[in-house]
């Protein structure tokens, strides 16, 4: 009998203990718990970028809690979408049905995002994309809950047109694109962007991914009179570098340009000397000495922050900033506030357009100088010591 009593006491103690653990108000009685959701690919082929983003989001939460300026204790609820739309929808539903979740930052893969926006819209939970570049995510349904902090192809090409046409004054363009969905997205974005900026398009050629011999197409472009000043390529590094090598073989002196698909040092490693003078719209530049990188390293995360870490970090910070203004309870108001914010952070100024798409997303202008991508303003081209081809 005594044994039973002591067992009962132990069980009761455990139960009470569990109660305490489950209720955070006990530990910080004055602070209310606010959850921010994170969904990304933590397993599968894109796990590296997913983990980098998760750490970025986690860092923002840690910093907010350390500062303790707000009457809230923040918690990041991390869920895996495994780059799979079905898993993503399940994770989104789990987040949205938790009343403590104020908003969420989500997804690397556009197909997953295109599936989950409907869930967040139905539950009225603000959703901000740190990855996923398909224009339809924001533009097709224009749900008030959905925003995106990373640039999409439309934004990238608008920035390209602003720089190459607006600033450099190169108005005669030839377009080459690959037939993948990314290449076609680029084609759909570059045409309106450059024609709106006053450019003339002289030619438009599709190529199959995996092509290695572009000489017939390039020779055709070379024969166009008057010669186009710009050859634009919508695609990724392998084909991009081969095109540039073969342009040089043919003695073509056009400006060669593209967007973030080319922003990898592999381009320079493959094209070598031929890469010189290529100008692109590149991804955000987060230097080694930036406060984000320093804090990230100090926090001791195992994984590298990847290209996605800064976006997730910025996204969580922006959500926290919005919560600071209107509080976490009224999600409709929170979504509206997020869309109207003018936030200054590591990506520069973030402002959303009428579809909830960021206007800049920290995009940079980069130029290949001595087999390296350099920021335009740091390069000898930007300083006027070397001149860009094509004039």
């Amino acid at each position, binding site marked *: 009998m005594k044994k039973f009593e002591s067992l009962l006491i132990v069980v009761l103690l455990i139960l009470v203990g569990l109660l305490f653990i489950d209720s955070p108000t006990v530990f910080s009685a004055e602070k209310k718990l606010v959850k921010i959701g994170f969904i990304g690919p933590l397993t599968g082929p894109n796990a590296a970028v997913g983990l980098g983003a998760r750490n970025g989001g986690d860092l923002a939460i840690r910093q907010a809690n350390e500062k303790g300026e707000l009457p809230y204790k923040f918690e990041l609820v991390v869920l895996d979408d495994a780059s799979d739309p079905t898993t993503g929808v399940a994770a989104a539903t789990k987040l949205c049905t938790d009343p403590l979740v104020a908003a969420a930052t989500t997804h690397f893969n556009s197909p997953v995002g295109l599936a989950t926006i409907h869930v967040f819209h139905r539950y009225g939970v603000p959703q901000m994309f740190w990855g996923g570049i398909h224009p339809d995510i924001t533009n097709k349904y224009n749900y008030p809950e959905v925003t995106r902090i990373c640039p999409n192809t439309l934004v990238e090409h608008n920035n390209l047109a602003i720089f190459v046409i607006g600033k450099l004054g190169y108005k005669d363009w030839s377009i080459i694109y690959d*037939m993948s969905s990314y290449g076609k997205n680029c084609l759909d974005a570059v045409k309106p962007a450059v024609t709106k900026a006053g450019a003339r398009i002289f030619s438009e*050629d*599709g*190529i*199959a991914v*995996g*092509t*290695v*011999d572009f*000489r*017939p*197409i390039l*020779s*055709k472009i*070379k*024969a166009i009179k008057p010669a186009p000043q710009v050859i634009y390529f919508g695609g990724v590094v*392998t084909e991009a*570098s*081969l095109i540039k*090598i073969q342009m040089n*073989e*043919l*003695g073509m002196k056009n400006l060669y340009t593209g967007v973030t698909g080319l922003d990898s040092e*592999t381009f320079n*490693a*493959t094209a*070598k000397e031929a890469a010189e003078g290529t100008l692109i719209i590149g991804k955000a530049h987060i230097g080694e000495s930036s406060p984000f990188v320093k804090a990230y390293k100090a926090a001791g995360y195992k994984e590298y922050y990847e290209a996605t870490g800064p976006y997730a970090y910025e996204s969580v910070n922006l959500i926290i900033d919005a919560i600071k203004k209107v509080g976490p309870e009224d999600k409709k108001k929170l979504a509206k506030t997020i869309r109207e914010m003018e936030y200054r952070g590591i990506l520069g100024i973030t402002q959303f357009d009428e579809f909830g798409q960021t206007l800049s997303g920290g995009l940079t202008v980069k130029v290949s100088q001595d087999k390296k991508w350099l920021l335009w303003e740091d390069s000898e081209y930007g300083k006027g010591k070397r001149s860009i081809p094509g004039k």
Partner: protein
Amino acid sequence: MTQFIEQIMFALMLSSTYALISVGFTLFFGAINIVHFSHGDVAMLGAFSGIIIYGLFGFTGLIGNVPSWLVTMIIFLATFILIGFLGTFFERTVIKPFRKSPLLMVLVTTIALGIVIRESVRLFYPQGSNPQVFPKILPQMNFEAGNLIFRFDHLLIFLISILLISFMFLFINRTKTGLAIRAISQDIEAANLMGINSDIIIAITFFIGSILAGLAGILIGSYQTVVRFDIGLMGGIKGFSAAVVGGLGNFYGAIVGSLVLGFIESLTSAYIPGGAPYKDVFAFIIVIFFLVFKPSGILGRMAPIKI
């Protein structure tokens, strides 16, 4: 006009890369009646052997100290030996056991061998899935004529291709070993009775054919500037198709077939609006056309009923 001359040059270059592969198919089919479907992958191994040997030179710090023509010669020679023996090894291990089996068996084993070669390179070569930059082992000079640029390295690739193919032709038709190879292809048992050691002759055929593939790999790598583990797949199919179009088993046929494919691909890219992504489609429609209406190919005499 400039554009037209350029297009013809590119078509000729493309054709010569196809011819190097298709002549190999012709050798194996014409001489020993097999279709060696991993021939393109052996060529890919040749290209990678070129990269690795050049890398060894860089590693030992010899580049810059040794004249570049010597480096190029050593790369050609080492690939020559390496791929030649590797090809013979493949014959001994994968093809010989099926000599008396139906042809279909060899077809399947060579396809399987091709997959093994490709996947091994992808797995064991550092970052094997990525395209690898092929070193510039040929002199990078060019001379300009108006708007036209003639590249010395392209000219060399073209000339070496013609030279290799001519050597192959002379070897088969003018030497005693060549005679033995042809004898085996006609009747292996009769050839054995005449005192020809068929094992050795077949090994020699594979040695020669693989050398041709290995050197083709180096030339194709030099022309395309990057190589990837899977270039042998498409290269092999194109080379085989060229051989079929020209007439499988016929040397001239392989060359004519390569010219047909090379010109169709280049000219569709250049002159059919929006044709570039469909160049392979056009090329293979021609192949199907030949298989249906003239299965013996342009120059072939007998229909290749065996495959």
